[in-house]
Every structure is written in structure tokens, then in C-alpha cells.
């Protein structure tokens, strides 16, 4: 079984500042890792994913995440945020070889970008 913990429920940050959204996971098997973003009143869309290979993964909108197996983490980063990045961010995991549609989501982190 897998579980995901997003360590911050809310992250306020000023525009153009860097941001890191933290995610830790627990699993007895190898996993695939994902970050999804949910803008107000919309569905989720994929930001980036880690399946294998390079531990630094780049996604859309300037986001990147680093897979750290020893620390079981997959933190999301952006060097300079915009007001439009204000949204809910979800970290998710699925078991290796399993249906990647059966995602286990974290509790979400609300990113609030202030002018």
C-alpha cells in the first residue's frame, strides 16, 4: 500500500519569489510519482511525473520536481512564481506496474501568490 503526505496545507509567497511544495510518500514497492494542479472550479491537470531515469523532472509552467528515493520525497519547485500559479497542488503516487489511474493523492497544498 502507498500513502502520500504533503507537509504544508498552505504556502503563501510573494510574486517572483521561489517556492517549494513538499511531498513525502510511503510505499513497500517502487512507485511512480506525479504532481497535479487544480485551478479554481476546474479539474486537475498534470504538471509533471516521475517514472524512471533522471531524478530531476521538468514539467509545465516552469515547475520541476526532484525524486529522492532515500528520503522518499518528491518536492515541487519553481524559481519564480506568478500570480497565475495560485492554485491547489496535489502530489500523487501509484504502484510500479499498476494502473497509473489508481492514484493515491496527498491532502493538497494551497499555493497563494501575493502581489
Amino acid at each position: 500500500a502507498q500513502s502520500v503526505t504533503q507537509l504544508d496545507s498552505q504556502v503563501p509567497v510573494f510574486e517572483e519569489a521561489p517556492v517549494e511544495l513538499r511531498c513525502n510518500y510511503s510505499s513497500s514497492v517502487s512507485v511512480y510519482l506525479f504532481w497535479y494542479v487544480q485551478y479554481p472550479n476546474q479539474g486537475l491537470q498534470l504538471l509533471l511525473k516521475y517514472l524512471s531515469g533522471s531524478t530531476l523532472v521538468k514539467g509545465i509552467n516552469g515547475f520541476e520536481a526532484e525524486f529522492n528515493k532515500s528520503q522518499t520525497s518528491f518536492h515541487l519547485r519553481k524559481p519564480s512564481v506568478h500570480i497565475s500559479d495560485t492554485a491547489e497542488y496535489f502530489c500523487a503516487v501509484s504502484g510500479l506496474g499498476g494502473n497509473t489511474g489508481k492514484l493515491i493523492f496527498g491532502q493538497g497544498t494551497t499555493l497563494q501568490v501575493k502581489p
Partner: protein
Amino acid sequence: DTAVSQTPKYLVTQMGNDKSIKCEQNLGHDTMYWYKQDSKKFLKIMFSYNNKELIINETVPNRFSPKSPDKAHLNLHINSLELGDSAVYFCASSQGEVDNSPLHFGNGTRLTVT
């Protein structure tokens, strides 16, 4: 051009009623899902269908019954609605069990049971 569309967007109903939420995807995907997002924004999978066959059925009350008439549609019927069913329900699709196929979500149906 909407990839995954759900109807209705909002649904307000009274306890004890029966209601349905419809979902359609035009991506040609083989697999469709229903996820529930509660008031704390916690997302949990309910069901998934692959080519009209039930694949995942999480611990969901029998009052919830998914129906997939074809692989482009997955509807969710809920009987005897309860207050605790109030949530946002998301439909999603992906290209089967391919490892690198991300989920495509609809915009959600906000169900309010009074």
C-alpha cells in the same frame, strides 16, 4: 473540444433522492474513472472501467453504481442520497494501463445534498 466533460456542473438535491452524473471523453482512451473530492479537498478513487469492464471498485456504498455503455462514457448513479455524499465528483480518463499515461480530468460536478 472538451476532452473530458461532465454534466451537470452543479447538482443540488434533497436527501433520499436518486441522481445521476454523466461523463464523456473524446480522447479515445480505454479507461475511465470516478474520483470523489471531499470538503477538505481530499481526492479518492471510487471506480475505474477499462473498455466497459469494471477494474477498480474501492470501498464505496452500494448506493453508488457506475455504468459504462461504451468506452467513451462512464456515468455515476447514486441512490438514496445522504448528506455525506456532498462533494465534488471528478470523472477522468487515461489510455488504459500504460505506465506513462496521465489522467485527464473533467471539471467536476459539485453535489450538494440538503
